[in-house]
């Protein structure tokens, strides 16, 4: 699908986040890592809140994690998602110590529980956008 016919909200990348979205397109999950103290942070931002260094590196994440919490949406709130209901949105504790939130794929809503092992996968939404999704580990 091209961006012209895509009817869902698009991320507006900025200077800090562009490497994240570029890696997504290559089906790689990358996270910011402080170049001074090594603390991993997400979502992307310019300063390390542990040592205040602005020296930033990008690291490859394992994509492994566990369910932290979730919701199952039966109302779309945006016309672009009406055909996708119900949406299972999962917050995941990544092994790297940060979290992410994305739609679940092939996860039984009834079987969701805190600590359930999951992995990050990738779905191409448009030619220029790949979104993360969460699958069973």
């Amino acid at each position, binding site marked *: 699908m091209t961006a012209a016919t895509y009817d869902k909200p*698009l*991320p507006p990348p900025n200077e800090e986040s562009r490497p994240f979205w570029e890696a997504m397109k290559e089906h790689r999950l990358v996270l910011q890592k402080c170049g001074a103290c090594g603390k991993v942070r997400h979502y992307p931002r310019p300063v390390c809140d542990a040592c205040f260094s602005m020296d930033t590196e990008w690291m490859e994440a394992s994509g492994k994690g566990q369910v932290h919490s979730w919701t199952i949406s*039966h109302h779309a*709130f945006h016309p672009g998602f009406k055909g996708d209901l119900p949406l299972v*949105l999962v917050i995941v504790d990544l092994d790297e110590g940060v*979290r992410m*939130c994305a*739609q679940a794929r092939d996860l039984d809503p009834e079987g969701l529980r805190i600590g359930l092992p999951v992995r990050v996968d990738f779905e191409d939404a448009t030619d220029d956008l790949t979104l993360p999704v969460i699958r069973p580990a």
Partner: protein
Amino acid sequence: MMTGLRESCCVTGVGETEYTRGSGRSVAALQMEAALRAIADAGLQPGDIDGVIPYGNMEMVAEEFITNLGIEDLRFSAVTPLGGASAVAAIQAATSAIVAGAANHVLIPIGRNGYSGPRIGGRAQAIPQFRVFGEYEMPSGNIAPAQLYAPMARRHMELYGTTSRQFAEIAVTMRNHAMLNDNAVMKKPLTVEDHQNSRMISDPLRLFDCCLESDGAAAVIISGAERAKDLARRPIYIMGVAEGHPDSPSAISQRPDLTKIGLAKAAPRAFAMAGIGHEAIDVAEVYDCFTYTVLCQLEDLGFCQKGEGGDFVSGGRIALGGELPINTHGGLLSQSHIIGMNHVCELVKQLRGDGGKAQVADAEIGLVTGYGDLGDGSIAIMRN
């Protein structure tokens, strides 16, 4: 002990429009009507207002109040962009400005066409406070407050055994209170079963866990305590006031404890400033954008431990006649969604003895909270 702003200022006037679904009027007209009512309630003239804190969404700005109210010399203006925590956070800003000598009488107006006007929807990405989840979570379909807050409620349920029927207790209590209020939108009786049978919006939040969308406006006047004594109404003293921001304020998903919000930081400051304990509170107006939000705030306020909110709200404790009556006007869930300024007005009315059929007997001290923008919190403790 840090007494800070304790009893330095008072609420001297309150004003509310009719609350409706479909006002047929501009936001400016609604806010000006509420402002004029609050000014008249205080026994002031519009020209006496020398400070204004418009709502932080910038739909109305200080200039509009100067022009419409004929204010010759507005000396102080500010905004407190904390979403639903803005109204009560503005009380802290107004009080600080008055104590510093920057203004004498500060007007805080809030109002909107929340029912008949445009929804925020996809435009949330353009709001600075929402930019982060707007970039990383909205593209996955995480759009609206019900979806954003549902995982907070879900985690609370999983960790502490909190149930949907406990959320229902809150919804039913707010409805029962609204049924006593002539200016409430929802007057039809609601039962726990009605709540349990209502459609799921974003699990675990059902339709009757969600607040209304309303048209209307409300306003208060904050004045210095000395000046307040000479005005038309009994002054309602601001004993303690504070705002607090949660960890990871821009992304709920990254918050270390999903069940803890900014109010947990603000509440101890406000109680210390007021110099009172929780047992002194006769009535509480708690920002209720969702039922769960009330339960969570009662814990973060310190009325019970984290995880005990479900038990706390059960058994009639938060109803009129109970140990801690909450949202005596019906709240955002059943009176109207005036972004919590209706809660501030209700607390003042209770402490004046103007609570009508919902009056809490001998109410002397009460509190009001705000909650907004993914977990910002604010609190004011007042006495008569």
